[in-house]
C-alpha cells in the first residue's frame, strides 16, 4: 500500500497513529487515484478536442458527432469502481466502527463531555464504576455534576483538556455535550464523532504510537470554537499507571477540575440530562 499511500502524503495528510486508521487512508487513496485517473483522462480528451475541433481547423461542424458507444463503457466502469469501493470497503468498514466495539472491559471506557469551549473527560477510576452525574450538582468545581453521595463516584477521575490513554489498548469514548453540538476529532487517530447534547455517541480506536496528539473540536460551537482544543497523550502502560495514580491522588473524588467557564452562576435545580438515543 505504500505506493498508494504516497498520494495521501503528497496531499499533506499527517501520518496515522491508530490500528484502524490505515483502512480509512486506503479508501481515501483509492478515491484519489480513481478521481485522478478520471480527471486526467477526461482532461486529455478535453484538451485534444478543444484544439482539434477549434473553428479555424474545423470550419464546419459534423451534425452527427460521435456515434460510438464509448461513453457507455466509461460510465459503466465508473459505476463498477464506485460499487467496489462502496460494497468492498466503505460499508464493511463503517459496520466495524459502529457494531464491533471491543467486548467488556477489554476496552478503556471514557466519557467525553464537551462544553463551550473545552473537553471534559470522566473515567471510572479503580472500581470501574462511573459515578452518577446530575446537572443539579454542577458547579465550577464540579463541572460534570458528579453526585457527591454516590459511592461509585468517589474514586472517579474527571479531567479537563488533557486525557491520557495507554498505547495498544482500545479506547471507547462515549461522546456527549452539556450545551451545544461539538465534534471530537483526532486527526492522527483517524477518528471523529459529534458530541450532541441529549445523546450518547460511542466511538472507538486503538492508538498504536505513543505521543501527544491534538483533539480538535470539529463543529462550530460559538465564538470560542477556533480555540477549542484538547490533548490526547498516548502513554506506555507504566506512564499511564503513573498518571492514573497521580490523578487519583489529587482527585480523591471529582472536585478537582479547573473551571472551564469562569463566571458561571449558581446552578438552579434542573432535570437530569437523560440521554435518549437520537433524542
Amino acid at each position, binding site marked *: 500500500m505504500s505506493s498508494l499511500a504516497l498520494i495521501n502524503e503528497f496531499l499533506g495528510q499527517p501520518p496515522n497513529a491508530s490500528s484502524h486508521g490505515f483502512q480509512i487512508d486506503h479508501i481515501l487513496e483509492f478515491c484519489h487515484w480513481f478521481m485522478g485517473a478520471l480527471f486526467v483522462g477526461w482532461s486529455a480528451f478535453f484538451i485534444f478536442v478543444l484544439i482539434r475541433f477549434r473553428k479555424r481547423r474545423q470550419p464546419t461542424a459534423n451534425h452527427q458527432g460521435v456515434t460510438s458507444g464509448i461513453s457507455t463503457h466509461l460510465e459503466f466502469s465508473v459505476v463498477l469502481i464506485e460499487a467496489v469501493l462502496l460494497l468492498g470497503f466503505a460499508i464493511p468498514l463503517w459496520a466495524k466502527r459502529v457494531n464491533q466495539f471491543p467486548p467488556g472491559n477489554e476496552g478503556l471506557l471514557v466519557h467525553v463531555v464537551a462544553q463551550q469551549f473545552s473537553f471534559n473527560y470522566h473515567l471510572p477510576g479503580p472500581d470501574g464504576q462511573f459515578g452518577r452525574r446530575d446537572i443539579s450538582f454542577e458547579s465550577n468545581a464540579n463541572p460534570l455534576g458528579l453526585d457527591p453521595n454516590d459511592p461509585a463516584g468517589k474514586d472517579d477521575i474527571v479531567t479537563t483538556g488533557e486525557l491520557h490513554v495507554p498505547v495498544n489498548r482500545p479506547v471507547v469514548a*462515549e461522546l456527549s455535550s452539556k450545551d451545544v453540538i461539538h465534534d471530537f476529532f483526532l486527526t492522527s487517530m483517524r477518528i471523529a464523532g459529534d458530541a450532541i447534547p441529549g445523546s450518547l*455517541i460511542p466511538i472507538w480506536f486503538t492508538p498504536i504510537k505513543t505521543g501527544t496528539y491534538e483533539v480538535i473540536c470539529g463543529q462550530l460551537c460559538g465564538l470560542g470554537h477556533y480555540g477549542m482544543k484538547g490533548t490526547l497523550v498516548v502513554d506506555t502502560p507504566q506512564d499511564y499507571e503513573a498518571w492514573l495514580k497521580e490523578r487519583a491522588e489529587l482527585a480523591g473524588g471529582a472536585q478537582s477540575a479547573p473551571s472551564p467557564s469562569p463566571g458561571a452562576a449558581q446552578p438552579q435545580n434542573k432535570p437530569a440530562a437523560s440521554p435518549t438515543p437520537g*433524542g
Partner: protein
Amino acid sequence: MNNPPDISQDSKEYEEYAHGVQKHVRGYLMVGALLLTFTAITVALSYVHFGTDKANIAIAMLVATIKAGAVAAVFMHLAAEKRLIYRVLIFTGFFVLALFWLTLLAWYDYPIFH
C-alpha cells in the same frame, strides 16, 4: 370534473352539464353527513380504551384517514382528476414518506452502547 364543453349560458350542452352538476350536489351533501358522523365516532372511540394507547392512536388515525380520503376524493374531485395531477401528488406523497421514514430509521439506528 372540468369545464362545461362550452361556457355559453344557453347552449344545449350546458343544460345537460348543469344537470350533471345537480347530480353531484347530492353526493356532496351525503359526504358531508358522513364526515360529521365519523367525527362523532372518533370522539366516542377516544373514550373507549382499546388495551394500549397505541391501539387507540391507530384506530383514531384510521378513521381520520378515511375522512381525509373522502374529502380528497369527493370535495377535491380527486376521484376523477387528470393524470398530471396524480403524478404530482404521487411524488409528493413519496417524498413525505421518505422524509418521515428515513428520519425515523436514522433515529433508532444509533449504535446504542452497553
